[in-house]
């Protein structure tokens, strides 16, 4: 298996230092650039398997990099953002970034995001039509959902929502993205309905809906279905 090739776009030397150490230890190859301009050109020139992108770059906003890269490429992008900048995270995700980690972050979290993002771009192997996580089993063909082997009844909207989440396992989805996929583009501002449906799904699928293991909230941003 070829080692994944990561383009690091980050100006802070200390952060780059520990990214280098981590990526090397995990067996990834990497190339580093310090500016948004270089990030855009090198992503075209080097065709990396993944871009790690800092949002606070010296020359341009990191969001510009996402916009420019997405004009021509679907390469997975994981954003490094500061805490408390929910608006930036949402913009980054809505522009097409795959995920984000908030600084300061631990290595475990970063690697999990990278793995999920790389999986998206991996060639689709035939996974069959049954998906499982925790106590939950979903048969996409038969539209059947079982918890601990027992069939559970989901309303059509609940099922649709679960279907979208299971399509992107491990990946954060913004309210906008979920509303668009489940209810269509005319309902993008009705996040409270989404929350109510998520709450109902949790009651049906989670052991303790107040401490969900799988259907996790990303406060201010959206939801993430954690399946491992």
């Amino acid at each position, binding site marked *: 298996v070829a080692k994944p090739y990561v383009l690091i776009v980050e100006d802070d030397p200390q952060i780059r230092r520990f990214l280098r150490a981590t990526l090397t230890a995990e067996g990834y190859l990497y190339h580093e650039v310090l500016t948004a301009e270089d990030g855009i050109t090198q992503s075209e020139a080097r065709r990396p398997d993944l871009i790690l992108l800092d949002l606070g770059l010296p020359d341009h906003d990191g969001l510009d990099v996402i916009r420019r890269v997405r004009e021509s490429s679907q390469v997975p992008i994981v954003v490094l953002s500061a*805490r*408390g900048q*929910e608006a930036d995270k949402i913009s980054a995700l809505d522009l097409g970034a795959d995920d984000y980690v908030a600084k*300061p972050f*631990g290595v475990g979290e970063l690697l999990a995001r990278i793995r999920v993002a790389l999986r998206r771009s991996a060639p689709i192997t035939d996974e069959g039509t049954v998906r499982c996580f925790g106590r939950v089993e979903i048969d996409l063909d038969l539209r059947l959902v079982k918890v601990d082997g027992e069939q559970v009844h989901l309303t059509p909207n609940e099922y649709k929502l679960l279907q979208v989440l299971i399509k992107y396992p491990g990946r954060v989805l913004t309210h906008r993205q979920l509303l668009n996929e489940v209810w269509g583009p005319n309902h993008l501002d009705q*996040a*409270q309905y989404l*929350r*109510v449906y*998520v*709450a109902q799904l*949790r*009651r049906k699928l989670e052991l*303790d*809906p*107040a*401490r*969900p293991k799988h259907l*996790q*909230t*990303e*406060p*201010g941003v959206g939801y993430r279905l954690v399946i491992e």
Partner: protein
Amino acid sequence: VTTPAKASEEFIGAAEASRSPAVPKVPRTAREFVFALCIVGTSTLVALALRPYVAPTNLAMIFLLGVVVIAIRCKRHPSVLASFLSVAAFDYFCVPPYLTLRVSDYEYVLTFVGMLVVTLVISTQTARIQKQAEGSAISRQKAEAARIQVETEQMRNALLSAISHDIRTPLASITGAASTLQSQGEKLQPGTRQELLESIAEEAERLNRLVTNLLDMTRFESGIELRKDLYPLEEIVGSALQRMGRQLDQRQVTTYLPESLPLVSADDVLLGQVIVNLLENATKYTPEGTPIEVAAEPSDGAITLEIRDRGPGFAPGDERRIFEKFYRGRAEGRGVGLGLAICKAIIEAHRGTIEALSRTGGGAIFRIRLPLEG
């Protein structure tokens, strides 16, 4: 470090601006003259009506009464004018011969002089009292400004000592552990290495929380901007518990969140921050292994959320003080004393209330009341 001070100064400035008189001065004097004329006119009409039945000296009392009212309400000039007009009106209408200013009996001169003197004395006194009142208002403002300055000063000192202690301590551990690993890494036992590494990670996390709190507090000093929407409380509690992560490993956390709870109108990130701060507080100040409960119930027009623990509870009088900035409830306090102040600021921005209560059977309860509408 200077931001809280600056915020207070701005606060004083804002108070001064809002105090500037809403009513311009010139119309006020004009209004007083009109008021004086009206009163004199009224006195005259009343005196005329009573003239057939009452002796002129007693009619003078009606004018005197009018003049007293004017002297109390108005500045000096309208008062003096009113007293001269009253004397003239009294003379003209009430002292025979009527409708002339001639006086038949010179005893009335005494009445005139008496009226004038009373007016002057009262209006002078009134002016002095007004001045004193203004003076005391100004000195009260000065005292208030001084108090705020003292508080700002205290806050700055508390902040500095908090920073020097609470930032230096974890920094010292990090520096120590890192330099040990750097210089003796080869010679250390694997267990020791692991311990040092863990302490670096933990202390860095502690620093991060501290800086986050300091930043939040300075941000909130200049007013909190809420991004409110409707949320199931369960979701906000759930992501707070998720954020606490391993900190809750040694704890039995029970949630009581009935399905029937209405949606709350809140800023999810900030309300989540409140719950995280309260949970952190509980883990910090109660013995490991003691349980924590998170419970909510609807109460008329509001939702009540409680975080309960079985720790030592509060020292008497602390229930209020713990919400003050930089106040640390217990001597061995391991924070700067900002967590609860932040909670209070956030909850009040939601127009809710937060209080600390001692729990029957031991322990603490933090009770939040969030109004449903708005």
